[in-house]
């Protein structure tokens, strides 16, 4: 208690609250915040390694079957909407830049820019999903959903494929739906994580010394971006395209 009868001065109260906050964030098994930060990063890198295995198998599958059925895979790829795929690439690259700047702001202890960049990252993630939804709708209209909305005769009459080749077109489209669907799910999870960080950042939960959550979320978001950078040429850009050809 000070001479004025107050238990704590405002400055002392602020200092104590910061101390309590920092102590609270340091889990008991770690000797320091830096150690805790490094462990969080390592955990995310290990998780991303399992994700590389997960997506890697799918990319390997596309590569093997594309080598076995080059004509069918190129015909099917030409029907995908490369314009939306390309625009979505730019959207995700921009969102990755926003996420990197969010981590930069967190490392500098700047709350306002951190909130702004996280908000932009989540918003661009939503734009990506909206464009993906539009693309899926156009695919539905174009009868590109094997097992539900698919016209085999169209591929025979229009693209000159034999009926047995149409089965390979379906195989490519299954890869397309599975891979882009799983990627979209990852984007959705990322938006949820970033939105949570946004709320926490507004409450002042991160500081220059303690922002591991923002950094590991950034690693995840960049990984999602990188997966899409591989998906674009693997699915949308097979063979030689023609302008106006979809």
């Amino acid at each position, binding site marked *: 208690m000070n001479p004025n009868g107050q238990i704590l001065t405002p400055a002392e109260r602020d200092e104590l609250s910061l101390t309590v906050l920092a102590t609270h964030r340091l889990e008991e098994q770690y000797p320091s915040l830096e150690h805790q930060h490094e462990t969080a990063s390592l955990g995310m890198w290990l998780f991303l390694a399992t994700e590389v295995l997960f997506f890697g198998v799918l990319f390997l599958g596309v590569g093997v079957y594309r080598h076995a059925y080059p004509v069918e895979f190129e015909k099917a790829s030409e029907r995908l909407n*490369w314009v939306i795929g390309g625009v979505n690439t730019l959207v995700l690259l921009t969102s990755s*830049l926003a996420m990197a700047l969010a981590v930069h702001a967190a490392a500098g202890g700047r709350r306002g820019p951190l909130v702004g960049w996280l908000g932009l990252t989540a918003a661009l993630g939503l734009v990506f999903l909206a464009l993906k939804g539009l693309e899926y709708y156009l695919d539905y209209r174009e009868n590109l959903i094997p097992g539900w909305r698919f016209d085999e005769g169209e591929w025979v009459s229009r693209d000159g494929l034999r009926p047995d080749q149409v089965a390979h077109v379906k195989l490519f489209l299954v890869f397309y739906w599975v891979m882009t669907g799983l990627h979209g799910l990852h984007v959705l999870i990322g938006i949820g994580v970033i939105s949570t960080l946004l709320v926490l950042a507004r409450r002042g939960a991160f500081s220059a010394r303690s922002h591991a959550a923002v950094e590991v979320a950034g690693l995840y978001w960049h990984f999602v971006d990188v997966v899409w950078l591989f998906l674009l040429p693997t699915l949308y850009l097979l063979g*030689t395209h023609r*302008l106006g050809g979809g």
Partner: protein
Amino acid sequence: MSESSPRAISRRAYLMTFAWLVLLTLLTVGVSFVPLPGAWHYAIGLAVGRARRRWWCCSSCTR
């Protein structure tokens, strides 16, 4: 971790990396419209991938 720590990357490096990635993406899409033999597409794709990798190495060294 403060901004002045050795791990900090400048804002300019982020912007340059972004511009470089956008350029390579446009190149990747553009090349798919050029009627080249398949082997050339592989070669250009690998060159684009290598350019991305080299940029990453360079930007890491100049943090």
